[in-house]
């Protein structure tokens, strides 16, 4: 660790206040109705102290263990994607005026967001979407503008959930890059504080601005111990060696038929995936037809409209749709963007209503492993 700060609880509060004073809309974890959600927060009192989650395929349970730990949960259903790349965005309106017409782009009103509590896998996902939306001819200026103004406070995980496999994808549990500040939360019987490293000049100046002191050697040791323990709790794995080729070579594997019997084609996996970026556009009109508008909305490769083209739909079966999703995520994504589309967060496993586990599907396609009990065999 490179000369980190030590931040006590009041210090974290000063960080949140400082971000708000600088004009950021601060988004962080809150407890709402039995789940953690990323939402607007104003002070450390909004943070979900004591909440821990249990995540297995198709199952999420949140309980409060009475601890003071703010970041003891692992991952909520919705990722930061919905702030940077919202489910609906109005793009422009068309107005017909006599014989001419005019186009008015919709003004981008995305605030400068400060995210608090971004996990290592989520930093990975944001960096993937950065690539997707900045590469080639199709840049998403609204996304890129939101990212340029984005302040990120990451948090190193203190433990993994059952569905986590970030160590396989190389994304966690320790945050590597892509943050302004990264916190490691230390909760002892007699102390509760954060070891904070900075990853940018704005991060450092903010920490100095609130008068944070430097961490000593024992603080750094405690932080490193926390991260090491977190590594040890990652149980699930995905064998990524030669994975793009394995999937590309096995498009006729019988496992695709097997998973299609269980898959609901409901699209939940793509909605919660922090890297899935597919969208569609909807054209609307007023009743007179003089004003028309175009709105972009999230879409999913699991919907029937997704592959509907002139002449028909080229992915009617559930088999072809699940295969498209998984092979894109883990195989053709690499060709397209130079990295895998999976960061090992396991959201698709947790929030699949029938608990389909992509790591189990990959194992089955690899042929070595037997089918897993939970979800994988249903």
């Amino acid at each position: 660790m490179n000369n980190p700060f030590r931040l006590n609880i009041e210090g974290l509060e000063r960080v949140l206040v400082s971000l708000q004073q600088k004009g950021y809309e601060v988004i962080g974890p809150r407890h709402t109705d039995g789940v953690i959600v990323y939402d607007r927060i104003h002070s450390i009192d909004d943070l979900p102290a004591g909440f821990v989650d249990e995540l297995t395929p198709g199952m999420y349970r949140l309980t409060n263990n009475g601890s003071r730990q703010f970041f003891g949960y692992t991952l909520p259903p919705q990722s930061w994607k919905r702030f940077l790349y919202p489910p609906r965005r109005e793009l422009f309106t068309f107005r017909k005026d006599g014989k001419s017409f005019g186009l008015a782009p919709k003004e981008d009103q995305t605030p400068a967001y400060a995210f608090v509590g971004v996990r290592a896998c989520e930093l990975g996902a944001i960096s993937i979407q950065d690539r997707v939306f900045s590469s080639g001819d199709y840049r998403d200026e609204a996304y890129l503008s939101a990212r340029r103004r984005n302040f990120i406070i990451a948090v190193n995980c203190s433990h993994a959930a059952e569905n986590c496999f970030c160590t396989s994808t190389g994304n966690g549990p320790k945050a590597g890059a892509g943050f302004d500040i990264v916190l490691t939360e230390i909760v002892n019987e007699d102390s509760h504080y954060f070891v904070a490293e900075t990853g940018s000049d704005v991060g450092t100046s903010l920490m100095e601005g609130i008068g944070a002191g430097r961490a000593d050697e024992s603080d750094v040791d405690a932080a490193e111990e926390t991260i090491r323990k977190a590594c040890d709790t990652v149980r699930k794995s995905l064998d990524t060696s030669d994975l793009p080729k394995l999937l590309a070579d096995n498009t006729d594997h019988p496992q695709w038929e097997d998973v299609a019997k269980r898959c609901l084609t409901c699209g939940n996996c793509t909605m919660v995936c922090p890297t899935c970026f597919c969208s569609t556009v909807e054209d609307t009109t007023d009743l007179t037809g003089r004003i028309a508008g175009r709105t972009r909305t999230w879409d999913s490769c699991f919907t029937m409209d997704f592959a509907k083209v002139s002449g028909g739909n080229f992915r009617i079966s559930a088999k072809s749709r699940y295969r498209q999703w998984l092979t894109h995520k883990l195989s053709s994504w690499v060709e397209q963007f130079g990295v895998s589309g999976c960061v090992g967060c396991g959201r698709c496993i947790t929030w699949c209503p029938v608990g389909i586990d992509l790591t189990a599907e990959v194992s089955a396609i690899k042929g070595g492993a037997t089918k897993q009990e939970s979800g994988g065999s249903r």
Partner: protein
Amino acid sequence: MPQRKNAGTPKVAVFKFASCDGCQLSLLDAEEELLDVAGAIDIAFFPEASRRMLRGPYDIGIVEGSITTPHDVEHIRAIRKSCGALITIGACATAGGIQALRNWKDIRNFVHIVYASPEYISTLDRSLPVGSFVHVDFELRGCPINKYQLLEVINAFLNKRKPNIHAHSVCMECKMKGNSCIMVARGEPCLGPVTQSGCGAICPSFNRGCYGCFGPMESPNAPALSARFRELGQTRHDIKLAFRTFNAYADAFRKESESHEQ
């Protein structure tokens, strides 16, 4: 003062068969939008709203209700002939409605119990959607329909464009709305994954599982969802009842409830 319509204003008629009126009420319920709609179309026949009943032909016919009697069959065929575009609205018109529960029973028994002189009753042996008898140009789902979807369909027809009505799952709109998941986070059965979107994911937004009011989504895998319901502690009977509600006779739901018959 009633607005004088020019010759190009489309004539719209609203018809009702076996139903509760809730869906056509959605049009009156459009409140803020109603004046705009009334300005853009000529409501030529809408007995629930007005005594003014102009004869056809009509440009657009909006039909609520299921077909349950031989007279209904004749009537819907005549309506089809008098309407340019025929739009059916609601679970009754698109799937046979809640009254299709009688399709699993012998209708003669009901008739004998209910009516003093059953010989005067002439009814079909099943309650069926309009589409079983005539060609339908667009089916708008829901029990009841969503008024914004109805306005969207009317708007799309007026502007000769495709309506933005999606046949994908409730889950899609539930997640886009920012909800978590009733089934995953609470272990409660929810028909959202096999049900078509359009309601705005109302029930899951209030921590209730989806009842399937909008009928089967575009590619429902009901057996897989039922298997999960069993793991969540639902009995075969519970599952049969879950699929046997407002859209009981829609193909995917009908097959699933029948496969859970004891």
